């Protein structure tokens, strides 16, 4: 088994491998986080309006598209 230092060094290609892996994780985590954050904001606004006792307009049967 490699030592941890050897693992980090990635055979000399550390400058390429680690940014690739870390960037992937960073982008995917950021996208997930921002999607959830946006959802929470919408849920909060929705709860606030519903608490005020606002009722939905009766849905007109509008044909889609």
């Amino acid at each position: 088994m490699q030592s941890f230092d050897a693992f980090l060094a990635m055979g000399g290609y550390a400058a390429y491998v680690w940014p690739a892996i870390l960037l992937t994780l960073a982008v995917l985590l950021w996208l997930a986080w921002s999607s959830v954050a946006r959802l929470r904001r919408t849920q909060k606004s929705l709860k606030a309006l519903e608490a005020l006792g606002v009722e939905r307009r009766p849905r007109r049967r509008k044909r889609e598209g």
Partner: protein
Amino acid sequence: MHFLANPGRFVRIADRVLPWVSALAVVLVAVGLYAGLVIVPADYQQGDTVRIMYVHVPAAWMAMFVYASLAAAAASGLIWRHPLGFVIAQSAAPIGAAFTFLALVTGSLWGKPMWGTWWVWDGRLTSVLILFFLYLGLMALVEAFDDPKRGQKAAAVLALVGVVILPIIKFSVDWWATLHQPASIMRLDGQTTIHASQLWPVLVMALGFTAYYIAVLLVRVKQQVLASRLRSLQLAAADA
């Protein structure tokens, strides 16, 4: 499909499924990364740079898979009038763009130590670049209208036009690349030396990315459904 047509029911199902899919995504990606970075030995010719393959190839697959599913959702909205078709398509676009972006950047990071240059106009990378622009066009089109529903519908039409022309783009770009590249250039997925036993983490990563896609898609679609509900409440409040 019609089972999922009711937005309210969709949200309830999404709420139940989401924790499992998210957990699945985390586990699969963790296993895939551990396998790709630790377990699998370095490649004989490419050394440790081959480990970039474990994020690059799945990302490229996802870039195309997301587009295909986005187009299917668009079709279901336009042709079969599925109420959630447009919403799903709109929600999927940024995820696809993210995977495409990752495929491009990791491809570049893989290419530099391999071929000595940050970018190569080979068939695969160039096609992915054009796919990236298609995603950007979709996202820009959605945002260009005051009425969000109009933007969604327009993007759905564009998605379908794109899916028809995409194979032709791929074909013409591949042809163009082979005419302009020396025959000795190795393809980025290293088909010459990589042994099958090194490939299984790619599959695990691909499955993990797919689970991730479903999870984030569910979150984004739920947000759109709730936002639409919010808009109608705001309208009703304004009326009152």
